[in-house]
């Protein structure tokens, strides 16, 4: 299992464009992708726009993205870049 901790950079948080872009990239990955706050709590399916919106992550909050399997590190790097982008 690989993971990336990233601070959400967009003013709107992980909603709207950042959320849609994140989920689209995650959905292309063959493995499961999970997202949760670094502080814990609910774990969301990174491929579900409904669950990502439900997580309601705001700008400046830290999230942990996890994936396992071949290519996980590459996918996680891309997802972390999307989530961290201003």
């Amino acid at each position, binding site marked *: 299992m690989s993971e990336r901790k990233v601070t959400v950079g967009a003013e709107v948080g992980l909603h709207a464009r950042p959320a849609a872009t994140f989920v689209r990239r995650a959905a292309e990955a063959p493995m499961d992708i999970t997202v949760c706050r670094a502080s814990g709590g609910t774990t969301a399916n990174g491929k*579900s*726009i409904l669950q990502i*919106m*439900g997580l309601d992550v705001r700008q400046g909050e830290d999230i942990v993205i996890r994936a396992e399997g071949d290519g996980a590190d590459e996918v996680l790097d891309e997802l972390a870049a999307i989530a961290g982008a201003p």
Partner: protein
Amino acid sequence: MKTVLAPVEGVAVPLSSVPDPVFSAGMVGPGTAIDPAREPGKAVAPISGKIMKLHPHAYVIVGDDGRGVLVHLGIDTVQLKGRGFQLLAAEGDRVSAGQPVVAWDPAAIEAGGRSPVCPVIALDAAQESVTGAVVGGVHAGDELFQWE
């Protein structure tokens, strides 16, 4: 099959006409949009279920089948930080389809330089699962599209 109702009164238009590529390109999901009547109104729940997320400018209702519908009141309206919107329900409430959720004034949104058009999105849905989308005049609570 799930029937999704029009959350506001106005003219139903294709998502492709929404002036925000996140919605017009279907990135958030399939659905349709309503160009709202320019008068104060109440946006209603498009389906029965639980209000999973309630922002002044947008809300998500999740039905007992786990399927969620997003209603976004205007474009870039997150920037208003709630000004001009009045919540008529609370996050976590159970609502019936057609029940008022947020009061707003599309004319005021437009006067502020933003589009008041309302995307109505089937979340986590395949593009082809949304059918029968109405085009033209609708009242709040009218059938808007089917989600197969």
